[in-house]
């Protein structure tokens, strides 16, 4: 009898935990988008497979602003049903592949809800920036 009560309590608690932490996002949009995205081929180096399984990179979209700055958008998707936390950082490189240092370069923490698609945007610090690299890490704080 006591064993049954313990099992029932355990089941109820685990069910409550699963349901309380899982809130997913429903989305809706135009069936046929009007805008055409300039998707670019990317090269990925995955060292944290766990993060990659949780928050995956869907694709990269690139544009040049009227002022001549390279603008990049990255679409991410939370593959899990629960909230995920991560940080990202953009690095910019000039025509010679040299890193461009900027005070605005910072690791930015973001949250992404369960099954949510999130777009992160960055703009090159100078018009001389031709290439970029984006780094992702699970939040350590």
């Amino acid at each position, binding site marked *: 009898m006591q064993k049954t009560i313990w099992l029932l309590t355990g089941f109820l608690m685990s069910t409550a935990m699963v349901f309380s932490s899982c809130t997913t996002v429903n989305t809706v949009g135009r069936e046929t988008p009007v805008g055409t995205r300039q998707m670019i081929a990317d090269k990925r180096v995955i060292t944290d497979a766990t993060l990659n399984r949780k928050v995956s990179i869907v694709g990269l979209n690139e544009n040049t602003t009227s002022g001549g700055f390279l603008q990049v958008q990255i679409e991410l998707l939370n593959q899990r049903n629960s909230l995920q936390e991560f940080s990202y950082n953009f690095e910019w490189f000039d025509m010679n592949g040299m890193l*461009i240092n900027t005070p605005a370069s910072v690791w930015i923490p973001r949250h992404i809800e369960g099954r949510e698609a999130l777009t992160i945007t960055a703009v090159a610090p100078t018009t001389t920036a031709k290439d970029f690299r984006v780094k992702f890490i699970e939040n350590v704080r």
Partner: protein
Amino acid sequence: MMKKTPRFYLIPLLSSIVIGGCATHTRYVEPTGPRTLVTSEINIQDFSYAAEDMVKSLLVSGSLDKTPVQPAVLAISRIVNNTTQQIDTDMLTKKIRVALNQSGKVLTTTTMGIGGIAEDPLAKDIQQEKEFYADKKEPQPLPDYTLSGKIIEKRDSQNKIRQVAYIFQLSLTDGRGLAVWEDEKQIAKQGKQSLIGW
């Protein structure tokens, strides 16, 4: 074989505690990295996030490209601190200034300030002296834009969860007195309420 008495273990243990206790655990961290401390107070990463967002927004807007002479000249106006903390607003404006300067779109004047107080008094003196000795006195070039703004703090709590939000508001005003670019960045943090205080 010698029997190991409690003292055998105790002496190295106490020694390690004493020696370890003297050592500090302070270490360097990347100020723009992911391992900086997260506090409810406004901190350096908050200024970095706000500056990064503001610079991005300003460059994309194309507002700085509309002056006849490039790069545009910018003067820093008042940034009001409406938070409960004593903060140096240069932590925000300097980052923005440096980033805009690097972009090649803006040069910031250091000889003009609110109430005629120059950020760099020596540069202003030199400028005035040059004007005095020059045969033809030329008017000082006026800035194309001024940057003004406000930092606001809003605190809330519910069911032992406390939330603090910092709102960074900036406006770029042109020579006609029109705000040609404006943006706002909100940063919100949540934590559990402590037993004493907020």
